[in-house]
Every structure is written in structure tokens, then in C-alpha cells.
């Protein structure tokens, strides 16, 4: 993206510093992107929502009324009250604490799984885009075949092989969701590496690694950031979904998806057990999606 400048001379003639034109302000593209982002109300709302949920989730060890595993059987199945704002579940956990820790699990899985996906997708995309040839061919065939393979079935299968735990679900979601990032990285590089400044750098004797790090990555970064932001809610959805089916995260680690599944048989009697965890999932998904959409609009104004 080019530097956008405005100057005090009449706009009839081009900028000429020798004639005493002063640059009034010259701001980088990221400044304009940030300004576009901040003007987008939905995106701001998303940022606030995500921040609030992060405090809600990551603050759980300090803010939650009880630990996630503390259960008081004597006060099971209580409706929401001042003492238990979200009620208590069937074995007497304080439900607010459970939902807070569940949100934390969702966020951890979301961030970590996307980190895994990046760790696989970005280097592979870089290799495919820079090297071309047989490496590109091999990587793209793997991507194609994995795209054709039903992802959920693959994830369920891997989870049953590995067994359910937080680290396994992060690994499984990461390994099934790097395709978009890889494909995008490659596509970016294919257009970028034909640019003149890359040829110039190469003729000046820059190595492949230097070109990749200094010239290609910084320019390819905007769409990748958008893809990463939008991959987070997808990963959180995958965790909630797998846990909902009973093959994601198991007790005692709280997971929102598992909580929804566990409360499903009781919601006829205790509506709040179904409402609060689903509400938390929906808010997390909405927050990250608004931020992702806002970033896309801000970073690439051409896209609708």
C-alpha cells in the first residue's frame, strides 16, 4: 500500500519539495486502516465485546465466585438468585463460575488452535509461493485433498485416536484449519513476487530468506491478519461443537459446548442451564466475527 500524502501546494501540479511545498501530513496506510476501523461501529462493538469476554474468561481465577470444580451438592439445581447469578447445575457447581471458566477454555483453544494453524499454514504457504515447482505442486495437492475430505469426520476420528484433552483438541483443530491460511499466503506471494521491487531486491543480491522476510511477508500480512481473525471464531465453534458431541474436552475442564450438551436433558426443568452457556458461545462468536469483518473492511477497502 502506498504512502498517502497531501501537501499545501495547489493540487494542479505534482508535489515538489524544492519549490517550498510542505507535506502537511503523511500517514502510513496502517494509520488510515486504523481510522477506518475505528469509524466502523460494529467493529468497535466487536472489540469491546472481545475485550469484555477476555476479562470475563481470563479473569475467572480472580473474579469467579468459586473454583470450576467446587461443587456443593446441597445447593444443586438452584434457579438464578443474588447468590448464584446464573443458578447452580445438577451437581451444585456455581454456574456463573462454570460459564466463566468455560469461556476461558474457549478462548484458549481459539487462540492456540489458530496459532497451530499459522505455524503449519504460513511456512507451507511461503514455501509453495516462493519455491514453486514440485514443492508447490506437492503442498497444493495435500491442501486440495484435505479440502475434499470431510473436516468434521476427520476431526472426530483424530480426537478418538488421540483421546480428549485440551492440548489434543488444540492440535486437531489446528491441523484441520491451516488450509485457508496456506492457500491465501501462497496466492499473495504469487502476485507479490512478480512486483518490480522484488526483482530489484533480487538483482541487488538479496537471498531468498531476506526477500521473504523483508519484502514479501510485510506486504502479504493484511489479508493474512483478516484470515487469522476470522479463523478464531471457527476454531472456537469447532471446540464447542466437538465438546457438544462429547469428544472434545471432558470433565473436570469446563467447556461451553460440553455444558450445553450436559444441560440439554434438563432444560425442560432448568432453562437457565441451556441459556447461559449458549449465550456465551454466541457472544464470543459474534465478537470475533465483527472484529474480523471490520478488519477486512479497514485493510482492504476495495472489497465489499
Amino acid at each position, binding site marked *: 500500500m502506498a504512502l498517502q500524502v497531501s501537501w499545501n501546494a495547489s493540487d494542479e501540479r505534482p508535489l515538489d519539495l524544492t519549490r517550498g511545498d510542505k507535506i502537511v501530513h503523511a500517514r502510513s496506510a496502517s494509520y488510515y486502516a486504523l481510522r477506518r476501523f475505528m469509524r466502523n461501529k460494529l467493529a468497535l462493538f466487536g472489540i469491546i465485546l472481545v475485550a469484555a469476554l477476555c476479562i470475563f474468561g481470563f479473569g475467572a481465577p480472580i473474579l469467579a465466585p468459586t473454583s470450576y470444580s467446587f461443587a456443593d451438592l446441597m445447593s444443586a439445581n438452584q434457579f438464578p438468585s443474588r447468590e448464584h447469578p446464573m443458578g447452580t447445575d445438577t451437581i451444585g457447581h456455581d454456574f456463573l463460575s462454570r460459564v466463566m471458566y468455560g469461556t476461558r477454555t474457549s478462548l484458549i483453544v481459539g487462540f492456540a488452535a489458530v496459532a497451530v494453524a499459522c505455524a503449519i499454514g504460513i511456512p507451507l504457504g511461503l514455501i509453495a509461493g516462493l519455491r514453486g515447482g514440485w514443492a508447490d505442486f506437492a503442498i497444493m495437492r495435500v491442501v*486440495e*485433498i484435505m479440502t*475434499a*475430505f*470431510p473436516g*468434521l*469426520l476427520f476431526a*472426530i*476420528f483424530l480426537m*478418538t*485416536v488421540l483421546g480428549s484433552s485440551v492440548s489434543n483438541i488444540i492440535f486437531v483443530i489446528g491441523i484441520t484449519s491451516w488450509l485457508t491460511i496456506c492457500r491465501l499466503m501462497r496466492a499473495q506471494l504469487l502476485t507479490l513476487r512478480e512486483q518490480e521491487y522484488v526483482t530489484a531486491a533480487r538483482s541487488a543480491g538479496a537471498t531468498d530468506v531476506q526477500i521473504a522476510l523483508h519484502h514479501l511477508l510485510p506486504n502479504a500480512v493484511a489479508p493474512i491478519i483478516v484470515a487469522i481473525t476470522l479463523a478464531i*471464531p471457527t476454531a472456537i*465453534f469447532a471446540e*464447542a*461443537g466437538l465438546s*457438544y*458431541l462429547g*469428544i472434545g474436552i471432558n470433565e473436570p475442564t469446563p467447556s461451553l459446548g460440553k455444558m*450445553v450438551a450436559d444441560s*440439554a436433558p434438563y*432444560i*425442560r426443568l432448568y*432453562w437457565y442451564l*441451556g*441459556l447461559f452457556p*449458549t449465550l456465551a*458461545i*454466541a457472544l464470543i*462468536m*459474534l465478537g470475533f*466475527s*465483527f472484529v474480523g*469483518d471490520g478488519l477486512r473492511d479497514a485493510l482492504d477497502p476495495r472489497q*465489499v
Partner: protein
Amino acid sequence: MLFAVSVIAFLLMHAVPGGPFAPDERGRLPEATRVAQLAKYGLDQPLHIQYVKYMWNALQLDFGVPFQSPTETVTGLIARAWPVTIKIGVPTIILAYGMGSILGYIAALKQNSWIDYTVSFMSTMGIVVPNFVVAIWLLLFFSIYLGWLDPGGWGKPQHYIMPVLAYSLAPMALVARYTRSSILEVMRSDHVRTARAKGLHERKVMTWHVSRNALIPFVTILLPEIPNILTGSIFIEATFRIPGLGRFFVTSAQGRDYPMILALVLLIAVLWGVTYIITDVLYTVLDPRIRLGGRTSH
């Protein structure tokens, strides 16, 4: 592609440690029994022979015997469960594509009005909120708060209402969003301005010049959603206790039921293939500039 998917699925299933008759927490089978079982299902033979045999049978719609229910055949199980899923899928497709395109159309006509904003907001919600969350909300509202509908089950017409609603929301939102943006794009194009300028009736402009061209991105992006819908949602079927295809994804992956997993993977792959062919054919019908098999002037 179909070949690649089947080979890889086949190898993957066999490459991972463990198997249907491997010793596990339930104890181990006596060696003689284990060998006999392996022989019975042909699991003692070399992989490539197993594969060729399997594909030959698969072409005749014989996918073998599922380990999870040895008294039936895979074909039988799928034949029993899939119609249930399709019965949910077809109304879902009709509702999602019908309502979605109407909403998107209205939103595009009344661009930047409150209707447009409502539709846009609802479609973001619909795309983002997982369908099992929507399903639970519908359950809470219709069968617990209002007490109108059974919370689950299968057989009566009223059992269709909530699953179809919950399942169609996400594709409906997607359809509405794409319809809106593609109609807006076409409405700004030159040939529509020309049509207006030569005094064509507004309705004729919308049906002949706008709607037909707006269908192209619609076909590209949204037709591939159909195989997904037709193979069902595990989440919806689990929530409303519908005896459809969805649960086999879970039970067969958990039980290492190779024949069943392979059959499901192939079923999905075939559906995808068919959809892509239909998509290509529809292109040529909608856009005369696109020609199959030759050079495209696009």
C-alpha cells in the same frame, strides 16, 4: 479426485494405531478369535488387495458390513438413515434458499434502509451463531417457554419445524448476504442502465436484466452448500433426537468402523462431484459467454 480421496481415506483408517479388534480397556480377545475375526472381515490381507476388493464391491453399492452393527450391511444402514436426513434437508434447502433470496432481494432494493440493516445484522448473526446454539434457543422458546412443540423425536409433521428452522438459519443468512451483494453489483452495471434508459418497465429490468445475472455468483458460492445440507448436521440430529445419518459420523469414527467411515467419505465425495458438475452446467445456461471444455472468454 474421488480416487485420491478414497485411497487416502483407506490408508489413513489403517495407518493409525488401534483397530476394531485391538486389545483395549474392555480386555483383549483370545488370539484365535482375533485371527478368525480379522480373516472374516478380510483384514488379514495386504492393503492393496483389500483396497481393490473394496472399490470393486463399492462400485456395486456393496460397502461391506459395519462393525458397529454386524447383522446389517453398510448400504442397509445408510439406506435407512439417509432418507430421514434428506427429509430434513429438502425443506431446509427450500426454506433457506427461498427466504434467503427474498430477504436479500428486498435488502438490495431498499439499500441502506432499516430493512437492509436488519437483514444484514440478522445474516451476520445467522452465519456466526452455531446451529446447535440456535437449536437450544428454539427448544427453550417453543417447547419450554411457549410449550407448543415436542422437544424432540421423529415421525409427526410437527417434528420437522424446529430442526428445519435451526438448520436453515445459517444457509439462509448466507444466501441473503450473497443475493444482496450480487444484486447491488448488477444493478450498477452498464447494461441495466441501458435497459432503464430505453424505457423498459422497472419490473422487466429487474427480472430480465438484474435477477438473471445476479444468479451467477449465487450458483458459484451457494450451490456447493447443498451437499452439506443433504448429508445432515450431527448437531441438529443430536439435539432433536432424529435418527438420521449424522450420528453415524460420530459412532463410526469412534468405533473405528472402517467400512462405514469409508462409505460416508465416498458418499460425500460423490455428492460434491455431482454438485460441481451441475454448477458447471448451470453456468453455461446462465451465462452464454462461458463454454465448457473450450476457451472461456471471461
